[in-house]
Protein backbone atom coordinates (compact mmCIF):
# COMPACT_ATOMS: atom_id res chain seq x y z
CA UNK A 1 0.00 0.00 0.00
CA UNK A 2 1.09 3.54 -0.53
CA UNK A 3 1.33 6.49 1.77
CA UNK A 4 -1.39 8.27 -0.18
CA UNK A 5 -3.87 5.50 0.62
CA UNK A 6 -3.35 5.95 4.32
CA UNK A 7 -3.50 9.72 4.07
CA UNK A 8 -6.76 9.49 2.16
CA UNK A 9 -8.12 7.10 4.76
CA UNK A 10 -7.22 9.60 7.46
CA UNK A 11 -8.79 12.39 5.48
CA UNK A 12 -11.97 10.39 5.09
CA UNK A 13 -12.05 9.71 8.81
CA UNK A 14 -11.46 13.40 9.50
CA UNK A 15 -14.28 14.45 7.22
CA UNK A 16 -16.66 12.00 8.83
CA UNK A 17 -15.74 13.41 12.21
CA UNK A 18 -16.28 16.88 10.86
CA UNK A 19 -19.69 15.86 9.61
CA UNK A 20 -20.61 14.58 13.06
CA UNK A 21 -19.48 17.82 14.66
CA UNK A 22 -21.57 19.88 12.28
CA UNK A 23 -24.67 17.74 11.92
CA UNK A 24 -25.41 16.07 15.25
CA UNK A 25 -27.79 17.43 17.84
CA UNK A 26 -26.37 15.53 20.77
CA UNK A 27 -23.39 17.13 22.47
CA UNK A 28 -21.82 13.73 23.14
CA UNK A 29 -22.16 12.89 19.47
CA UNK A 30 -20.31 16.10 18.66
CA UNK A 31 -17.57 15.00 21.02
CA UNK A 32 -17.43 11.66 19.22
CA UNK A 33 -16.85 13.57 16.01
CA UNK A 34 -13.93 15.39 17.58
CA UNK A 35 -12.42 12.08 18.66
CA UNK A 36 -12.62 10.82 15.09
CA UNK A 37 -10.83 13.93 13.87
CA UNK A 38 -8.05 13.43 16.39
CA UNK A 39 -7.61 9.82 15.32
CA UNK A 40 -7.35 10.88 11.72
CA UNK A 41 -4.41 13.06 12.68
CA UNK A 42 -2.87 10.12 14.50
CA UNK A 43 -3.05 7.91 11.43
CA UNK A 44 -1.37 10.68 9.49
CA UNK A 45 1.51 10.87 11.93
CA UNK A 46 2.18 7.15 11.88
CA UNK A 47 1.77 6.85 8.14
CA UNK A 48 4.23 9.63 7.44
CA UNK A 49 6.68 8.13 9.82
CA UNK A 50 6.31 4.65 8.43
CA UNK A 51 6.60 5.51 4.79
CA UNK A 52 9.10 8.30 4.98
CA UNK A 53 10.96 6.57 7.84
CA UNK A 54 11.64 9.81 9.59
CA UNK A 55 12.32 9.03 13.17
CA UNK A 56 11.78 5.72 14.91
CA UNK A 57 10.19 7.07 18.03
CA UNK A 58 8.79 10.49 17.39
CA UNK A 59 5.51 9.67 15.69
CA UNK A 60 4.71 6.96 18.21
CA UNK A 61 5.28 9.36 21.03
CA UNK A 62 3.11 11.99 19.40
CA UNK A 63 0.31 9.46 18.98
CA UNK A 64 0.70 8.40 22.57
CA UNK A 65 0.44 11.97 23.78
CA UNK A 66 -2.50 12.77 21.60
CA UNK A 67 -4.34 9.78 23.02
CA UNK A 68 -3.61 11.05 26.52
CA UNK A 69 -4.72 14.57 25.68
CA UNK A 70 -7.87 13.28 24.08
CA UNK A 71 -8.70 11.38 27.23
CA UNK A 72 -8.24 14.47 29.37
CA UNK A 73 -10.27 16.58 26.99
CA UNK A 74 -13.06 14.05 26.90
CA UNK A 75 -13.16 13.94 30.68
CA UNK A 76 -13.56 17.69 31.00
CA UNK A 77 -16.01 17.97 28.14
CA UNK A 78 -18.15 15.17 29.50
CA UNK A 79 -18.14 16.78 32.94
CA UNK A 80 -19.35 20.03 31.44
CA UNK A 81 -21.98 18.25 29.38
CA UNK A 82 -23.20 16.41 32.45
CA UNK A 83 -23.47 19.64 34.37
CA UNK A 84 -25.35 21.21 31.51
CA UNK A 85 -27.74 18.28 31.49
CA UNK A 86 -28.53 18.78 35.15
CA UNK A 87 -29.50 22.37 34.50
CA UNK A 88 -31.22 22.11 31.15
CA UNK A 89 -32.48 18.50 31.31
CA UNK A 90 -31.20 18.21 27.77
CA UNK A 91 -27.97 17.77 25.89
CA UNK A 92 -29.32 18.96 22.60
CA UNK A 93 -27.14 21.58 20.98
CA UNK A 94 -30.29 23.46 19.95
CA UNK A 95 -31.16 23.97 23.60
CA UNK A 96 -28.07 26.15 23.95
CA UNK A 97 -29.21 29.31 22.28
CA UNK A 98 -29.50 31.71 25.14
CA UNK A 99 -26.18 33.36 24.42
CA UNK A 100 -26.46 35.23 21.19
CA UNK A 101 -26.69 38.64 19.62
Amino acid sequence: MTLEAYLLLALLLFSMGLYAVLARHNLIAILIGVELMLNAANINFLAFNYFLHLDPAMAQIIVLFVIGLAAAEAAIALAIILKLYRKHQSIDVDAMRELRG
Partner: protein
Amino acid sequence: MNIAFTLPFAVIVIGAFLAVTRSNILHAVFGLAISLVGVAGAFLALGSPFTAVMEVLIYVGGIAVTMIFAVMLSSVSSPAERGGFLRKSLAALVAGLFLAGGSLIIVNADFGAGNHLSTDAWSIQAVGRDLLDRFNLAFESLSLVLLLAIVGAIVIVRREPVLPADQDDAPEEEAA
Protein backbone atom coordinates in the same frame (compact mmCIF):
# COMPACT_ATOMS: atom_id res chain seq x y z
CA MET B 1 -5.37 -5.38 -2.31
CA ASN B 2 -3.46 -5.72 0.82
CA ILE B 3 -5.41 -7.28 3.65
CA ALA B 4 -3.34 -5.32 6.22
CA PHE B 5 -4.80 -2.17 4.76
CA THR B 6 -8.27 -3.15 3.65
CA LEU B 7 -9.37 -4.78 6.86
CA PRO B 8 -8.62 -1.82 9.13
CA PHE B 9 -9.97 0.46 6.40
CA ALA B 10 -13.28 -1.37 6.35
CA VAL B 11 -13.56 -1.50 10.14
CA ILE B 12 -12.69 2.18 10.54
CA VAL B 13 -15.15 3.38 7.91
CA ILE B 14 -17.99 1.14 9.04
CA GLY B 15 -17.45 2.09 12.67
CA ALA B 16 -17.20 5.78 11.89
CA PHE B 17 -20.30 5.56 9.73
CA LEU B 18 -22.21 4.09 12.65
CA ALA B 19 -20.79 6.67 15.03
CA VAL B 20 -21.79 9.50 12.77
CA THR B 21 -25.23 8.43 11.70
CA ARG B 22 -26.88 6.43 14.50
CA SER B 23 -29.38 8.58 16.27
CA ASN B 24 -29.26 6.44 19.37
CA ILE B 25 -26.26 7.84 21.16
CA LEU B 26 -25.30 4.49 22.69
CA HIS B 27 -25.07 2.98 19.24
CA ALA B 28 -22.96 5.90 18.16
CA VAL B 29 -20.52 5.30 21.01
CA PHE B 30 -20.29 1.63 20.02
CA GLY B 31 -19.64 2.76 16.48
CA LEU B 32 -16.81 4.95 17.76
CA ALA B 33 -15.35 1.98 19.65
CA ILE B 34 -15.44 -0.19 16.53
CA SER B 35 -13.84 2.54 14.49
CA LEU B 36 -11.09 2.97 17.06
CA VAL B 37 -10.36 -0.73 17.04
CA GLY B 38 -9.91 -0.34 13.30
CA VAL B 39 -7.54 2.56 13.88
CA ALA B 40 -5.57 0.30 16.21
CA GLY B 41 -5.40 -2.20 13.38
CA ALA B 42 -4.06 0.48 11.10
CA PHE B 43 -1.41 1.34 13.67
CA LEU B 44 -0.45 -2.29 13.72
CA ALA B 45 -0.17 -2.29 9.97
CA LEU B 46 1.97 0.82 10.19
CA GLY B 47 4.44 -1.08 12.29
CA SER B 48 3.60 0.28 15.68
CA PRO B 49 2.12 -2.42 17.93
CA PHE B 50 2.79 -0.33 20.99
CA THR B 51 0.50 2.52 19.98
CA ALA B 52 -2.05 0.02 18.77
CA VAL B 53 -2.26 -1.47 22.22
CA MET B 54 -2.47 1.95 23.80
CA GLU B 55 -5.22 2.96 21.43
CA VAL B 56 -7.33 0.01 22.46
CA LEU B 57 -6.53 0.40 26.14
CA ILE B 58 -7.03 4.10 26.54
CA TYR B 59 -9.51 4.94 23.83
CA VAL B 60 -11.73 1.94 23.68
CA GLY B 61 -11.21 1.03 27.30
CA GLY B 62 -11.20 4.52 28.71
CA ILE B 63 -12.77 7.23 26.64
CA ALA B 64 -15.54 5.21 25.06
CA VAL B 65 -16.51 3.71 28.39
CA THR B 66 -16.54 7.14 30.02
CA MET B 67 -18.85 8.32 27.29
CA ILE B 68 -21.17 5.44 27.93
CA PHE B 69 -21.23 6.41 31.58
CA ALA B 70 -22.01 9.96 30.66
CA VAL B 71 -24.82 8.83 28.42
CA MET B 72 -26.20 6.68 31.19
CA LEU B 73 -25.98 9.54 33.68
CA SER B 74 -27.53 12.11 31.46
CA SER B 75 -30.36 10.20 29.91
CA VAL B 76 -30.98 6.69 28.75
CA SER B 77 -32.88 7.82 25.74
CA SER B 78 -30.96 10.36 23.75
CA PRO B 79 -32.69 13.38 22.29
CA ALA B 80 -34.42 12.54 19.06
CA GLU B 81 -32.71 13.80 15.96
CA ARG B 82 -35.57 15.85 14.65
CA GLY B 83 -35.69 16.73 11.01
CA GLY B 84 -32.68 18.86 10.37
CA PHE B 85 -32.30 17.95 6.74
CA LEU B 86 -30.87 21.36 5.98
CA ARG B 87 -28.35 21.07 8.75
CA LYS B 88 -27.29 17.61 7.65
CA SER B 89 -26.91 18.57 4.06
CA LEU B 90 -24.95 21.68 4.92
CA ALA B 91 -22.70 19.64 7.19
CA ALA B 92 -22.25 17.06 4.46
CA LEU B 93 -21.41 19.83 2.04
CA VAL B 94 -18.71 21.29 4.27
CA ALA B 95 -17.27 17.88 5.10
CA GLY B 96 -17.40 16.87 1.45
CA LEU B 97 -15.63 20.02 0.34
CA PHE B 98 -12.95 19.43 2.93
CA LEU B 99 -12.59 15.86 1.72
CA ALA B 100 -12.34 16.90 -1.90
CA GLY B 101 -9.90 19.71 -1.25
CA GLY B 102 -7.75 17.64 1.07
CA SER B 103 -7.50 14.82 -1.43
CA LEU B 104 -6.45 17.32 -4.06
CA ILE B 105 -3.57 18.36 -1.85
CA ILE B 106 -2.63 14.80 -0.95
CA VAL B 107 -2.76 13.44 -4.48
CA ASN B 108 -0.70 16.32 -5.80
CA ALA B 109 1.85 16.15 -3.01
CA ASP B 110 5.33 15.01 -3.81
CA PHE B 111 6.92 12.98 -1.06
CA GLY B 112 10.28 12.58 -2.67
CA ALA B 113 12.36 9.49 -3.16
CA GLY B 114 12.00 8.22 0.38
CA ASN B 115 8.41 7.23 -0.15
CA HIS B 116 8.41 3.48 0.20
CA LEU B 117 7.57 0.91 2.80
CA SER B 118 9.75 1.09 5.80
CA THR B 119 11.43 -2.01 7.03
CA ASP B 120 12.80 -0.50 10.20
CA ALA B 121 11.86 -2.37 13.31
CA TRP B 122 10.46 0.07 15.79
CA SER B 123 11.52 -0.66 19.28
CA ILE B 124 9.61 0.20 22.41
CA GLN B 125 12.98 0.87 23.98
CA ALA B 126 13.50 3.86 21.70
CA VAL B 127 10.12 5.21 22.66
CA GLY B 128 10.86 4.80 26.34
CA ARG B 129 14.26 6.41 26.05
CA ASP B 130 12.98 9.39 24.12
CA LEU B 131 10.13 9.90 26.53
CA LEU B 132 12.62 10.48 29.31
CA ASP B 133 15.11 12.29 27.16
CA ARG B 134 13.92 14.40 24.29
CA PHE B 135 10.29 14.55 25.23
CA ASN B 136 10.87 14.75 28.93
CA LEU B 137 9.18 18.14 29.14
CA ALA B 138 6.19 17.08 27.08
CA PHE B 139 5.89 13.96 29.14
CA GLU B 140 5.87 15.87 32.40
CA SER B 141 3.35 18.35 31.03
CA LEU B 142 1.10 15.54 29.95
CA SER B 143 1.00 14.31 33.52
CA LEU B 144 0.01 17.82 34.59
CA VAL B 145 -2.71 17.84 31.95
CA LEU B 146 -4.11 14.60 33.28
CA LEU B 147 -4.01 15.87 36.85
CA LEU B 148 -5.75 19.05 35.74
CA ALA B 149 -8.41 17.08 33.90
CA ILE B 150 -9.14 14.83 36.85
CA VAL B 151 -9.40 17.67 39.36
CA GLY B 152 -11.32 19.77 36.89
CA ALA B 153 -13.84 17.10 36.08
CA ILE B 154 -14.48 16.50 39.76
CA VAL B 155 -14.85 20.21 40.49
CA ILE B 156 -17.20 20.76 37.60
CA VAL B 157 -19.64 17.98 38.31
CA ARG B 158 -19.63 18.43 42.09
CA ARG B 159 -23.11 19.38 43.15
CA GLU B 160 -23.54 22.74 44.78
CA PRO B 161 -25.15 22.33 48.18
CA VAL B 162 -28.34 24.32 48.60
CA LEU B 163 -27.33 26.72 51.30
CA PRO B 164 -29.72 28.29 53.78
CA ALA B 165 -30.82 31.72 52.68
CA ASP B 166 -27.50 33.34 53.22
CA GLN B 167 -27.59 36.80 51.72
CA ASP B 168 -24.51 36.47 49.64
CA ASP B 169 -24.41 32.81 48.87
CA ALA B 170 -28.00 32.06 48.08
CA PRO B 171 -28.10 30.50 44.64
CA GLU B 172 -29.90 32.87 42.39
CA GLU B 173 -31.33 32.32 39.00
CA GLU B 174 -30.91 34.78 36.21
CA ALA B 175 -34.20 36.31 35.33
CA ALA B 176 -35.85 33.93 32.93
